[in-house]
């Protein structure tokens, strides 16, 4: 994608036009393209030296990662005088709908953070711009990142995201409870975990490992599926394969925990985590984004964290990555694009500060800094090569929410056998994926 030459619209021209037009909508339509445009603007050399400009930065860091990002933005605003970054935080659940609507309405932000598994979808929906041309300017290259995280930022022939962090599931243990039964707080293998669990149960710890029926059930399942050697979806997005033998083995292991009383029945979404915080459940698998939450809302809970034990044949864990993106715009403005690039460069250069979010900085260099090494999540650093990501398929997340997540709920609540639940929903997922292939074909 080459640079789009677009007549730059200054603020004054825009204001005049707006004043002339009766409605605000008419004003926008008069000077903006009907569809969002990608523009990489003039090259950024050194510091930004244009007129003072304010750029909009949207993300969904609402949890324990929020304060760390607020700090980074404040640091950037303090570091220079010309650019003001205004951050807008929207819950991830609504973020991806809102940002599409905003960009298409011509009111989109300039810079954003997104989950890597959303990049294909957002690129297909004309929301985000390719970054291939600006990688040099903001100083990033492939060798600075773990291979898989870097590669997942590419969709079609273009790169759409620059990795900020990786975040995976982890195994949390309540060290008090585990010590009571003489179990291993950081189990590494299936034998480890199962032996610890039975030791705990005979020591009177009821239901040491809770299996939730919704969130984060699908993240647990995907980790296990990969461990058993399966793949959830074909790489080309044509077929759902989570009903393979590996999938059935993974889900059967989870439902087995419920049948044998290791987990209570009917665990509601997030209840497994709330219970763990309340001192029930010796082990729980949840995202590393809970680290800051545990620190602040359960300060008395004695806990430790380790990589997910290998229940299947090979170590693997579901992971995701926040990637920095530039948005398309119906009326691209060179100053704002330059300022956005300067801001991106700052975020990447200061990756190690992002360790404060509880997540793992994607940049390999940043993972060697003392900031990261003293963080609780540093124990997961050796597991980074085992982290697995969903393939870059447009609208895959939407398909997954309607099929795989339902299958897991049905099996974990005992309404269907693992096999029946996975089979039925995999064929439905394939149908939806085929429809999506056709729908997004024109673009990619």
């Amino acid at each position: 994608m080459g640079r789009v030459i677009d007549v730059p619209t200054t603020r004054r021209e825009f204001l005049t036009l707006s004043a002339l037009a009766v409605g605000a909508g008419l004003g926008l339509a008069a000077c903006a393209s009907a569809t969002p445009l990608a523009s990489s603007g003039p090259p950024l050399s050194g510091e930004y030296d244009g007129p003072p400009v304010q750029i909009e930065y949207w993300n969904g860091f609402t949890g324990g990662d929020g304060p760390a990002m607020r700090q980074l933005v404040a640091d950037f605003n303090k570091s220079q005088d010309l650019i003001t970054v205004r951050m807008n935080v929207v819950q991830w659940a609504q973020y991806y709908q809102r940002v599409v609507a905003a960009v298409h309405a011509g009111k989109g932000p300039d810079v954003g953070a997104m989950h890597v598994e959303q990049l294909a979808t957002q690129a297909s929906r004309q929301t985000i711009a390719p970054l291939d041309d600006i990688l040099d300017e903001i100083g990033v290259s492939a060798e600075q990142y773990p291979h898989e995280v870097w590669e997942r930022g590419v969709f079609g022939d273009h790169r759409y995201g620059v990795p900020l962090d990786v975040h995976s599931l982890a195994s949390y243990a309540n060290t008090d409870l585990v010590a009571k039964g003489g179990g291993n707080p950081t189990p590494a293998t299936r034998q480890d975990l199962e032996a610890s669990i039975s030791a705990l149960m005979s020591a009177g710890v009821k239901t040491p490992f809770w299996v939730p029926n919704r969130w984060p059930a699908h993240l647990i399942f995907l980790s296990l599926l990969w461990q058993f050697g399966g793949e959830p979806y074909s790489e080309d997005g044509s077929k759902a394969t989570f009903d393979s033998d590996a999938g059935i083995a993974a889900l059967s292991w989870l439902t087995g925990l419920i049948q044998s009383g290791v987990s209570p029945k009917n665990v509601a979404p997030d209840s497994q985590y709330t219970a763990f915080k309340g001192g029930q459940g010796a082990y729980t698998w949840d995202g590393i984004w809970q680290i800051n939450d545990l620190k602040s809302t359960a300060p008395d809970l004695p806990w430790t964290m380790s990589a997910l034990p290998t229940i299947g044949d090979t170590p693997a864990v579901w992971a995701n990555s926040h990637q920095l993106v530039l948005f398309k715009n119906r009326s691209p403005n060179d100053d704002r694009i330059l300022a956005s690039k300067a801001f991106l460069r700052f975020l990447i250069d200061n990756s190690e500060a992002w360790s404060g979010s509880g997540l793992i900085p994607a940049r390999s260099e940043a993972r060697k800094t003392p900031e990261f090494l003293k963080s609780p999540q540093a124990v997961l650093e050796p597991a980074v090569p085992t982290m697995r990501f969903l393939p870059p398929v447009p609208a895959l997340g939407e398909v997954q929410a309607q099929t795989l997540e339902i299958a897991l709920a049905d099996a974990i609540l005992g309404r269907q056998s693992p096999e029946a639940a996975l089979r039925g929903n995999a064929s439905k997922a394939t149908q939806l994926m085929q429809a999506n292939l056709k729908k997004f074909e024109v673009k990619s």
Partner: protein
Amino acid sequence: MTQIAIGRRHGVPARSTAAVGSSTTSATSRRRDRRDGWLFLAPYLVLFAVFVLLPAGFGVWISLHDYDYSLPDKPFVGLDNYTGLLTGDSPFASTFWQAMRGTAIFTVFSVPLLLVLPLGVALLMNLKVKCRNFFRATYFAPYVLGVAVVAVLWRYLLDTNIGLVNQYLSRLGLDSAIPWLTQLPWAWISLVGVTVWWTLGFNSVIYLAALQDISPELYEAAKMDGANVWQRFRNVTLPGLRPVLLFVTSVTIIASVNMFGQSYLMTQGGPGTATRTAIYQIADTGLTNFNSGMASAMSMIFTVFLAVVSVGVFALFRERGTTSARAEGEA
């Protein structure tokens, strides 16, 4: 006078025949009359057209396309969205019909409760007891809460494993593992129960207002005739409430078929997709998943069902109305 009334009803033009030789003044006044009407209607009509008619028309148009506003290509697919849903060929069909059934289940169980229980509450509120205003406020209080507050509150209370309700049940030595939100039929019981708790106050207040409109002389007269409490309720209270019953019934049905927030927040449509409602599924398909064409087709089918129900309700009450009128006439 009659002529004018007839002319108006049939829309007969003013100067149609010489036979209507009444006068030109009546014709002009009739015309002016109509213009005034339009003038008074205009503010509402404009809003109605802009926010209801146009979007509805646009919705029909969208439902004929594979419409995703973020994609440049929105191919025309004719009636495919409809036939896919009606024949079950579309991958969206099974969840959609399950959601329609969900709406039906919720409506069938919540509406009777929301018609009867508030009446009982209103009768209690109407008694002359101490702290009457306090009780009235107590029953009405939940209604002022938003759906998010109510749903999140009850989600915590009703959690199977860490919820307060099961905790208390176990204190009482009862079954303490009731899956309030994760198994059927409990999930429906919870949703209906919470909705009744939440909105009962509204219907109660309407009933209460109607009760206070019933003249005390009627009760006195009935008492003089030796009517007992039940007979007074049956023959004085109920007929007195008839005028508001149509309103309460329609409003309650509308609220129930539109149920969305409770199941979205309390059960997330679960277990599986069992407590998804039609609105939930339409919102999920159109807004979360960008399949606006399919979602619009779903809405249109849903609208047809709603129209049938509304016609049913109005027919029911019209019949009642005429019989009661006849009864009054006979008396």
